[in-house]
């Protein structure tokens, strides 16, 4: 984990949550920019997991190794699933679906930051 990168994920996810809520309130399905933004969030999340995995392979041992690995894997599948689910039926609720996934990414990243202490 790199702290600055983790906070970037938190910030990007926070904006994704707000964006999803805004499109829901304005009764619109997520537009192309919003979907691209979600893809960008996913890309940064994947980079974060890859870097963390590299550090673990390189010898770093977080106190809760199994939990940390579970989070690093779980966090990257949320946005793609939400993306799919939000696009099957496109309406105001699609934005909320993306927001739910972004909230989970945000919460999991904060948890990962806490978990990332040597055991």
């Amino acid at each position, binding site marked *: 984990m790199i702290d600055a990168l983790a906070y970037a994920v938190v910030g990007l996810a926070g904006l994704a949550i707000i964006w999803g809520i805004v499109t829901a309130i304005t009764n619109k399905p997520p537009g192309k920019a919003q979907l691209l933004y979600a893809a960008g969030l996913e890309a940064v999340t994947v980079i974060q997991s890859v870097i963390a995995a590299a550090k673990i392979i390189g010898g770093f041992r977080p106190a809760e190794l*199994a939990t940390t690995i*579970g989070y690093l894997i*779980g966090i990257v599948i949320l946005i793609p699933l939400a993306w799919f689910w939000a696009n099957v*039926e496109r309406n105001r*609720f699609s934005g909320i679906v993306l927001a739910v996934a972004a909230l989970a990414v945000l919460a999991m990243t904060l948890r990962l930051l806490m978990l990332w202490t040597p055991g």
Partner: protein
Amino acid sequence: MTDLHAQPTGPSGHRSTGPSTNTGAGRVLVAVYGVFALAATARASVQLLTRFEEAPLAYLLSALAGLIYIVATITLARGTRASRRLALVAILIELGGVLTVGTLSVVDPEAFPRATVWSVYGIGYGFVPLVLPILGLAWLWHIRSTTS
């Protein structure tokens, strides 16, 4: 604008094309259930694999929670008449589980040395585990009353 906000009517007259648990707000419910299916299952897997002997009951309940969330996610996402029935059973077990484990973990914290998703009514997850089955039941009730 091809907004599918209205319920898909399909070929009219078909009873299978009424409102379903997987349309509209139901999609959000499925998404939240999906997140909890992932969270609870992953958490239980780690607990069972790495320290089962510490608190077998708590960790088995943790696994049960994960299973229930998976069943609820899939059945709500399918949204057929048969899957709605299964969803109802799963969500009732979920409600019973969060109330039972929540109460036990408050009354007898010793029995639950490590948190599960249902500990203290899901406090570790912003009490969403307590609210979710209530929303689920309300949604099933809503769908049933609009289809019949």
